[in-house]
């Protein structure tokens, strides 16, 4: 049980801090959150700076162009960048956290050479085309068809909830290549160029009013067979690599940010008199405990992952990620509910700080596997209860 960082880790932190202090004042001003092309440009600019400074793909293996950093160094990176107020990974999310790691793990050397460097340099944006109108939690029910025609697949179907599809260059697409096979064995993973003929993107408006995600219509889109990562019909296994990345360290920066928000919220309560209300104080106090624990849970999971990596494993946090996600998504929602309690009627005004976060926090118990699905995973895979019905 050692929580202190090694000297090496502290040196890494100090170098990073020094670089952040130098670079952050030189960044362009933040884009309008509703302007996706501007957001894309901003996020890619940041990724380019990370790349040039040697921080791109920190946790990716060296032979994939990454830095081969330990999970602990990656944790320090996420903690420090957030604490310094650096930009979030943003439009780079899918490339850096899903598609990239999948290609790194499962792609051929040609595929790695084609797709990984532009992700790391901040030149190409990826989106994730997994969910379909009739395949959400039950992802393996997906029906988008890919029919082989010589050395191309002809893809027809539709995807939904595809985040930032409107500014993506590529889509990691799950398609059905064998409709006769058992559900999990007829799926393949394709890299779909978003500018291919037959791809239509129709943005969807979220309850927060923004255009975070889109519907994707695919009408006889021709995708080269060489864009398939992993063997034909082996896409389900290939995908699972990606999904565990998502629940791993994806929320570290957010937890750091939530802890900061909590302090701001306490100050606000003190200013507007709410602080005199013991129920508000106690709610804030409990949230303080909650986020302290979540931070320690992250360190616990990272320690496990680092150990796994030393033992020759993947370094990807396993089912412990489900425990974390369940607790975190709930805590985040409670944080912004408490913010509304502190703001009172002012929370009804969308331009108020935290009003939009309150709305967007509602997606946390749904996206990346709903809370019910996470509980199923915990019950069956960790606790070993009989398969549910």
């Amino acid at each position, binding site marked *: *049980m050692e*929580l202190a960082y090694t000297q090496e880790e502290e040196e890494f932190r100090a170098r990073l801090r020094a670089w952040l202090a130098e670079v952050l004042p030189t960044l362009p001003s933040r884009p309008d959150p509703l302007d996706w092309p501007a957001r894309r440009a901003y996020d890619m600019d940041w990724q380019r700076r990370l790349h040039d400074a040697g921080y791109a793909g920190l946790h990716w293996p060296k032979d994939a162009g990454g830095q081969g950093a330990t999970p602990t160094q990656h944790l320090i990176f996420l903690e420090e960048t957030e604490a310094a107020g650096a930009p979030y990974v943003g439009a780079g999310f899918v490339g850096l956290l899903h598609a990239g790691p999948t290609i790194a793990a499962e792609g051929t050397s040609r595929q790695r050479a084609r797709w990984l460097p532009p992700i790391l340099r901040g030149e190409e944006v990826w989106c994730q085309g997994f969910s379909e109108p009739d395949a959400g939690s039950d992802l393996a029910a997906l029906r988008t068809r890919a029919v082989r025609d010589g050395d191309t697949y002809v893809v027809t179907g539709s995807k939904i909830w595809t985040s930032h599809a409107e500014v993506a260059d590529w889509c990691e697409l799950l398609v059905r290549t064998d409709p006769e096979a058992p559900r999990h064995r007829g799926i393949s993973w394709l890299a779909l160029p978003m500018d291919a003929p037959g791809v239509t993107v129709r943005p969807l408006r979220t309850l927060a009013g923004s255009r975070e995600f889109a519907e994707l219509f695919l009408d006889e889109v021709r995708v080269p067979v060489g864009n398939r990562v992993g063997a034909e019909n082996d896409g389900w296994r290939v995908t699972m690599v990606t999904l565990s990345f998502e629940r791993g360290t994806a929320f570290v920066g957010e937890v750091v940010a939530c802890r900061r928000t909590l302090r701001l919220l306490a100050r606000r309560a003190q200013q507007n008199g709410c602080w005199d209300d013991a129920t508000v*104080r106690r709610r804030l106090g409990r949230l*303080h*405990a909650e986020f*302290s624990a979540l931070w320690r849970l992250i360190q*616990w999971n990272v320690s496990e992952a*680092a150990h796994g990596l030393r033992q020759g494993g993947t370094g990807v946090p396993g089912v412990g990620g489900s425990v974390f996600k369940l*607790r975190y998504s709930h805590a985040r929602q409670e944080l912004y509910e408490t913010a509304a309690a502190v703001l009172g009627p002012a929370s009804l005004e969308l331009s108020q700080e935290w009003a939009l976060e309150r709305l967007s926090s509602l997606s946390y118990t749904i996206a990346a596997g709903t809370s019910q699905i996470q509980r199923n995973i915990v019950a069956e895979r960790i606790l070993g209860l*009989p398969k549910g019905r």
Partner: protein
Amino acid sequence: MDFRLTADQEALRRGMRELLAARFGRQALRAAVDGAEQQQVVDGRLWRELGEAGLFALRAPQSAGGVGLGLPEAVLLFEEAGRALLPGPLVASHLAGGAGLVAGAADGSVVVTALEEEPRPDGGAAPLVEHLAAAGAVLALGEGYGTGAGEGCPVRVLVPGQLVAEPMRSVDPLSPLHRVRGLLPGQPPDDGGGTTGGGGGRLGGVSAEVLRGEAALLTAALQLGSACRTLELAVGYAREREQFGRPIGAFQAVQHLCAEMLVRSETARSVVYAAAVTADDEEISAAKLLADTAAVGNARDCLQVHGGMGFTWEADVHLHLKRAWLRAEQWRTAVAGEERLASALLQPICR
């Protein structure tokens, strides 16, 4: 950073689990419950064995005949004690033994209990003391409760006869309680410890505030152990008990109760262990708060999973729930912890 347990820590924990399985297994637990009304709950022989195993001298320096280990190791042992529902004033005895406050506490020949708060002449709620009849000494850790202003409060060692106390019917059959109405002026105990510690409320170089924090942390560890145990009981029962032709654990409503139990206990574990490493007072508050919630919440869900069986005296679930309720009222309660954690949000952070 490597948060995982070291091999030595794993071995220590395993040793404690084995000792308790041999000396305080389920049969012994039920025998203690059955005999609780007639006899002492604290078994003097077992107490000395725990002393020999180092439970009370764990953190005393080796130069003073102790084991010389730290809070993380203590937390692991207390987690095991919590799992086994081991009765007795473990926390107070461990504090007294570790700091050399009471002769005989470290080797388990004297049982030490604690008084958290001064009885108030103004008729405020009378503080409770557990296992008073079994105790040879009472560690009084003063007031300053929940205000954070405890720095100067005294550490005193009292003889049980100094307490003007009346027995009450305790909800937990294995934790007899007394309500304390007042204190009689005492004779200084033989070891010269005196009633009031020297400068700044320190006796033997320990501050009451530090001891109070450690008490909260060790109590949290007991709660954590109990929360893990009720999860195990629930999962075990859910696998075995069949209704509608299948194990009830195949029903999602039951699965989700169990999943949330794991989320509670693992979240509490991470902060309890971290607080043991940092000994940070804020983190200790968080640990106690989440461990209390986990112990009470898991015991209640475990009861639900057991159906009618859960409502019986025969099932162990109620013993966990009752002990969890009791520990939640000890040391940093939810109100005290939440208030401290809230005030801490207003303090500037040093990065």
